[in-house]
């Protein structure tokens, strides 16, 4: 009896879902009110940029942080979402919302397929396969004239979209809702049986298997969810920028940020990727505006190296140690 109570207490305090959701929605509304008060379109732009990374980093964390499998293909999954949205619009005229849903389905299936092919091997092979997947997808998109090929695709957005003051604000609100939803899913997963199983896989996969954790099934759930959420992060991208080409969609800065943000914030906790994304996202916006975009990637690279070397638990680790 004492053993079970001990592990219960050790895993986590009982999750207070209502508090989290109310807090997140309150924070979202507050953000919107502040940005509207500022009234500058750049505010929405920067907000979207950061929130998109909150989604991407949280998605990476589901597989990388909880289960310990490194996905290098964030840019590939994200572009899969973005190009699904473009293709859907061209084929059927359906716009943003169905596009996000379709992007999630396609990227999720892609994650499932990659996982199914490689997850029975050592984790490193999965990582290399995701690296390759991004290259394969980019080649396919470059050669696929229907979605613009290497020239890129245009999406013309409406000027007005009531009740929002501008298209930028609309996109910001969409991404805000997606970010809150993603973080909520990640948090719920962390406190569920699936989360506990994934943590067992991360700590010792063989031992987990030996005590009856269905490792392959759990890993496939995690890769599918991770891929789908990355697709969600990417699907609004063409609507947001109005133009998308393969170089922008498969940009390596997505891949590096998707890994750097959770690791710097604290991988394996739902709050870590959020902290990392807000911190690094803000830093990069500031660096792009004031210095240069080359330098900001350089800073991210150095921060990643320094953090994984000196603070392997990330910023969240600082708080845990002090308690």
């Amino acid at each position, binding site marked *: 009896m004492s053993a079970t109570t001990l592990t219960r207490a050790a895993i986590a305090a009982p999750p207070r879902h209502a508090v989290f959701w109310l807090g997140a929605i309150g924070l979202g509304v507050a953000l919107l009110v502040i940005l509207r008060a500022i009234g500058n379109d750049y505010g929405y732009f920067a907000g979207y940029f950061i929130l998109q990374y909150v989604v991407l980093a949280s998605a990476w964390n589901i597989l990388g942080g909880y289960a310990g499998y490194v996905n290098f293909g964030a840019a590939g999954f994200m572009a899969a979402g973005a190009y699904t949205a473009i293709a859907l619009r061209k084929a059927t005229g359906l716009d943003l919302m169905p596009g996000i849903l379709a992007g999630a389905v396609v990227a999720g299936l892609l994650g499932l397929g990659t996982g199914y092919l490689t997850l029975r091997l050592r984790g490193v092979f999965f990582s290399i*396969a995701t690296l390759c997947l991004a290259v394969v997808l980019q080649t396919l998109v470059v050669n696929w004239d229907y979605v613009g090929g290497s020239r890129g695709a245009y999406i013309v957005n409406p000027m007005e979209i009531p009740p929002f003051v501008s298209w930028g604000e609309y996109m910001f609100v969409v991404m805000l809702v997606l970010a809150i939803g993603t973080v909520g899913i990640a948090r719920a997963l962390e406190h569920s049986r699936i989360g506990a199983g994934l943590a067992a896989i991360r700590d010792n996969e063989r031992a987990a298997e030996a005590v009856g954790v269905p490792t392959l099934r759990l890993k496939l759930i995690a890769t599918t969810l991770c891929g789908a959420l990355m697709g969600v992060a990417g699907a609004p991208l063409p609507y947001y920028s109005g133009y998308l080409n393969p170089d922008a969609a498969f940009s390596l800065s997505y891949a590096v940020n998707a890994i750097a943000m959770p690791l710097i914030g604290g991988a394996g906790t739902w709050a870590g990727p959020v902290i990392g994304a807000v911190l690094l996202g803000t830093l990069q916006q500031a660096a792009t505006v004031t210095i240069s975009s080359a330098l900001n990637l350089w800073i991210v690279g150095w921060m*990643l190296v320094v953090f994984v070397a000196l603070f392997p638990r990330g910023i969240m680790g600082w708080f845990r140690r002090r308690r």
Partner: protein
Amino acid sequence: MDPQLSLLLNGIVSGLLLGGLYAAAAAGLAISFGMLDIVNIAHPALMVMGAFVVVAIGTALGLDPLLVALLVAPLFYLVGIGIYGFYHHFFERRGEEALQGLAFFFGVIFIVEVGLVMAFGPEQRFLDPPYAFITWRLGEVDLPLRMLVPAALAVTVVGLLILWLRRSFTGLAIAAVAQDADALRLMAVDPVKIKRLAFGISIALAGMAGGALVVVQPVEPSSGQIFIGRVFAIVIMGGMASLPGMVTAALLFGVVENVTATFYGPSWSPAVAFGWLLLVLAFRPQGLFGRAA
């Protein structure tokens, strides 16, 4: 000769020459990833750094790029020693190489790549030796020296490496360290020292491969990215720790890529090659030439 057949023959021959370059690029990785179990995804980035250093020195002194590549190899050996020291101290010793170590090398890629952009600018760099414009003809088959000379150098270096690994005590120790580090300790050999030496050699090979790369094609800071998948594919297909297997896989890979480019256009060649890797990972992870574990 039938023009289609001649095209195919030329595609195969230049694919073999391209495979020589790939063997140079993958040789170091066969040591670090294949033998030492260090997943150095920054290997191609360091190769491109080698190419830039070769261009800078070669242009300044007016020397042949391949000669410069041999001269800068010791420098890259020292870089490799430094990287391994850091990696061992922070990750390997703590047993955190899986997640944190991978992230570390990923960060190194960005530091190298963006550092090159800031130091040299994002544009392409080239350094053509005089023989780069000569093409030998054997009947229907073209043999451009631009491809042939680097491939010959690569095969020579890998050949010497194979001999050294099989004949010398240190070479045998490197092969042994991956299999059983504790047993090596019983032979009064420090496995960490051996791994540091071997990793230094692997980065020296990356620097040399950079010299070969610059003879074949112009380089830009991001040239390494496309090589990441290629070199890992080659090492895995070659059976991880086997250098002869790696060379065979590299040649095969070059041929498949080049024949695809000849018949369907160069924009398709990456997808075919990487699709092939995905299939190998899925159905034959021990490599085409490796033994089942």
